């Protein structure tokens, strides 16, 4: 059972089985004309990109009604839609017939759409998860690594949204993950290309952009080599080049670019939609900011608050650009964006959940807790889509898997388990989970009163929002203290080997030296 290849294979097969089980459930907007849901949006994009010339994709024309699920994702999504549309047309032209196929629903088509997600997942996300744990985490046994990979693959949020609700988050998140893998293995150019691809698949990946930027900039600035500028220039060229390639069909016309950007960033859609577990939606219960302030003011307010909360983590990473800090900064940045930025969707929590998954082997307790709450924060959506029956078992499975991966079966017990604080945090955890269970039960069983039709969704968002704020604080704390590991290892050589795994691919000795130098430099800068 210690064979790495066989175990990996078994885990992938299990992950696919679970994903396919979820795909048996209904998708968003199934049987709900006239607008249906995200499933129809994706189908419509296939229809449109396949039949219309590129220059009409983002424009309102007689054949392209942008009011009906107009394309509002960056070009890579459009190309992907075109590819799927091409295959769909070969299999059954009715699925993507121009205009005539609106609201098309059939068993065969559902199956086709589910397969497209599975293929994307198998090509991008699943290998990225395996690669992350096998290539970048050191000093753990194969069984441990693969157990963590399995837990990450079982994270219910992504599975439910991609295979139930219907989206292709696995692609954008998968590219981001590949970016982290590449950075951790010292392939910064490849990493930046992967991240640009993610960004060009889904603009929401901007939530991750600041940490990547700070990390790369920091690496260039504090690089030992004399050719820092050259390094920076190379990365810049690769980033701009990838962008240019992705936008190639739109580059001939500046108006065209503006139109695409206008479609991608719809500021007109308001501060938030539906019930999101962020600050603005929660504040809305007390102060109706939406009515008090004008839209430009709201945009400025959200921008300012986002930047202020983002600053500490970003500066910290810029000064100490290590993979460890990058991962924490990714969590912090995406959480800040989720909590404070403009026009946030409840599904955007997945963007924060991804980097949390990458920390699950270091902070299993906090990460498991966060991931469970993140799924819970999407509860109203999941109930609406009829996915609750899949959500509950997935949550149980995920929690069990996470417990097993931490248990003595997989991880030999370590000495640094703090007894007292552990029992306190367990108490807090179970109180929190009790709240989750109670709110879930209420949402399912008790009809909300007439006066407050959104009582349960609002309570769910406020409850999750409170958690997210606390998580944001603790992940910031963890990011700042994660430096201590480096210092300790610099002093105690014996601890080095133990902690080496936490620093990704870099050799421990190397890392320590670099860290030391960096610190000196930091002092000078200060």
């Amino acid at each position, binding site marked *: 059972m210690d064979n790495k290849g066989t175990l990996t294979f078994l885990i992938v*097969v*299990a992950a696919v089985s*679970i994903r396919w089980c979820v795909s048996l459930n209904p998708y968003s907007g199934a049987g709900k004309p006239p607008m249906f849901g995200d499933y129809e949006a994706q189908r419509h994009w296939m229809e449109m990109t396949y039949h219309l010339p590129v220059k009409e994709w983002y424009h309102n024309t007689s054949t392209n009604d942008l009011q009906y699920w107009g394309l509002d994702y960056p070009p890579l999504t459009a190309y992907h839609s075109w590819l799927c549309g091409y295959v769909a047309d070969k299999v059954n032209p009715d699925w993507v017939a121009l205009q005539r196929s609106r609201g098309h629903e059939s*068993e065969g088509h559902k199956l086709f759409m589910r397969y497209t997600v599975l293929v994307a997942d198998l090509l991008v996300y699943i290998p990225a998860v395996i690669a992350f744990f096998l290539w970048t985490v050191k000093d753990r046994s194969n*069984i441990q690594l693969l157990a963590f990979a399995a837990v990450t693959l079982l994270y219910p949020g992504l599975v439910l949204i991609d295979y139930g609700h219907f989206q292709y988050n696995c692609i954008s998140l998968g590219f981001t993950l590949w970016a982290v893998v590449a950075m951790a293995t010292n392939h910064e150019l490849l990493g930046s290309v992967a991240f640009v691809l993610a960004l060009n698949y889904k603009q929401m990946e901007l939530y991750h952009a600041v940490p990547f930027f700070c990390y790369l900039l920091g690496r260039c600035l504090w690089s030992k080599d004399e050719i820092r500028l050259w390094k920076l220039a190379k990365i810049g060229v690769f980033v701009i080049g990838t962008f240019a390639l992705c936008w190639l069909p739109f580059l001939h016309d500046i108006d065209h670019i503006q139109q695409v950007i206008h479609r991608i960033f719809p500021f007109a859609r308001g501060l938030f939609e539906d019930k999101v577990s962020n600050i603005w939606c929660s504040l809305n219960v007390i102060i109706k900011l939406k009515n008090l302030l004008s839209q430009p003011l709201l945009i400025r307010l959200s921008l300012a608050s986002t930047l202020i909360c983002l600053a500490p983590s970003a500066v910290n990473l810029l000064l100490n650009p290590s993979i460890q800090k990058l991962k924490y900064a990714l969590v912090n940045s995406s959480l800040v964006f989720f909590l404070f930025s403009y026009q946030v969707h409840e599904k955007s929590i997945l963007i924060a959940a991804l980097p949390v998954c990458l920390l699950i082997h270091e902070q299993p307790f906090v990460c498991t807790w966060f991931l469970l709450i993140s799924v819970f924060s999407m509860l109203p959506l999941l109930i609406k889509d009829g996915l609750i029956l899949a959500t509950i*078992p*997935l949550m149980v499975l995920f929690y069990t898997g996470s417990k097993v991966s931490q248990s003595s079966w997989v991880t030999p017990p370590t000495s640094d388990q703090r007894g007292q604080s552990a029992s306190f945090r367990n108490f807090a955890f179970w109180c929190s989970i009790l709240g989750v269970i109670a709110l879930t039960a209420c949402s399912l069983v008790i009809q909300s009163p007439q006066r407050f039709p959104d009582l349960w969704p609002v309570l769910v968002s406020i409850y999750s929002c409170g958690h997210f704020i606390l998580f944001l604080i603790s992940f910031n704390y963890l990011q700042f203290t994660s430096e201590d590991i480096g210092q300790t290892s610099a002093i105690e050589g014996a601890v080095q080997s133990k902690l080496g795994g936490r620093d990704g691919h870099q050799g421990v000795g190397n890392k320590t030296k670099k860290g030391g130098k960096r610190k000196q430099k930091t002092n000078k800068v200060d």
Partner: protein
Amino acid sequence: MAAYIWVVVACLSTLKCLLIPSYRSTDFEVHRNWLAITHSLPISKWYFEDTSEWTLDYPPFFAWFEYLLSQIAVLFDPEMLKVNNLGYASSATILFQRLSVIVTDLVLAYAVKEFCLTLPKPREDGVRGWSQPGFTLSILLVANFGLLIIDHIHFQYNGFLFGLMLLSITRICQDRTLEGAFWFAVLLNFKHIYIYVAPAYFVYLLRTYCFTASNKNGGVKWTSFSPVRFLCLGVLVISVCALSFGPFIAMDQLPQVLSRLFPFKRGLCHAYWAPNFWALYNVADKALTVVGVKTGVVSGDVLKHKASMTAGLVQEFEHTVLPSVPPIATFALTGLTMLPSLLHLWRYPGGPKGFIRSITLCAFSSFIFGWHVHEKAVLLMIVPLSLLAVQSFKDAQVFLLLSTVGHFSLFPLLFTPAETPIKVCLMIAYTSFCFVSMDSCYRPINYTFSLPHLPLLNPIDTMYIVGLVPLYVYCDIIHPILGLSQTLAFLPLLLMSVYCSVGVIYSWLRLYWTTLKRGGTKVEHSKQE
């Protein structure tokens, strides 16, 4: 030690819950109808009711089981309990029925846990629980591919019933013989198909419980017969049956009940040919017919029957060249092929392992030669054989062959495209787990061959198992692409039956051979693997 089994059970239960929205066969409606019958009709009408074509044809305990379930079903959706609501499947009904299978499966989990406690103490050298036989066994049984797809997709209550069977076997292994006999009697009154393994129970209990001593050469000591024990057993079994059938005997309905339980109107083979001897027989008949017509030995008229025979939908058909098989012939063959194993069990009881081996052999005989055998019955061999697989190398070899082939032969049960990835993934996962875990269990044993091969199997077995892959690819992918689905609709099923029946019969012969050889040289007593 037993903690891991509950982890396995928890994970598997979540998987089962995820399968709730999957495809349901007509068996779902069968069980809904039985819920309705037992809930809304008096006992006297249970076995007479025929509004639905799916009449109650399980023994009375199962009817009572449905009755108990229906008491909870009321809370979910009372509509499902109306006899006239044919084909009723509201989401509450689906949820309730699916959950009832998942919850009653806990009987199996409990039985597996109990059985694992009878296994020899785990080796100390392995730090992790992974490579312990108990852990392996609990996954082999709780996550059994066949049980998963038959119970949780197709819809039946086999997990619960096999749980009872395992419990009975476990009690007998623990020397709590009367309890074991009691559970087996109960099981028989839940589903009478288990009567196929009853001969093994009868012989084993008579030999080791009613006769209390053996001669020095291992033979039975005739003077040690204990009438008290015999009487105890008899009274126990008869009273369980009386409890079950008594009310119907009192109402003078026994013939009606029995006619429902044993419907001989059905044909030799089920709609899809189970991979047994008769599948080969049918194919031989068909091949001979074609050859005969070509050479003019057989008149062309017989070909008119071809459609009815090959479509596989008509349950009864006449053989054209080979003699048609009456039910009595199948019984005779089943009995005859069981006989050597039973005699062997009598001569060399061989402890619990010999008993389990004998159960498996009885199940094999009835599966291979029985009348109107369902493909699902293959679990009757796979489940007891799993118990042996973790304890003995030779049995593990047969188990790997049989479980792979047997589970593969269940594929046609799930024919909906949406479920295809699940059945393929689960099959791959389960089979690879079997091979990997058996490999790590028996790694010290030297069985290397010069040619590449799968763990524990020789190159020829390996080729046979690997051959399942192209077979599947042909049947599910190439055949439809070639556009033969209409003209040669039967061909994939026929190929599968024939290919699998070869494997099943081969596994049977091999298990038979090792069993007979083993007892003769008394390996069982001298060497524990």
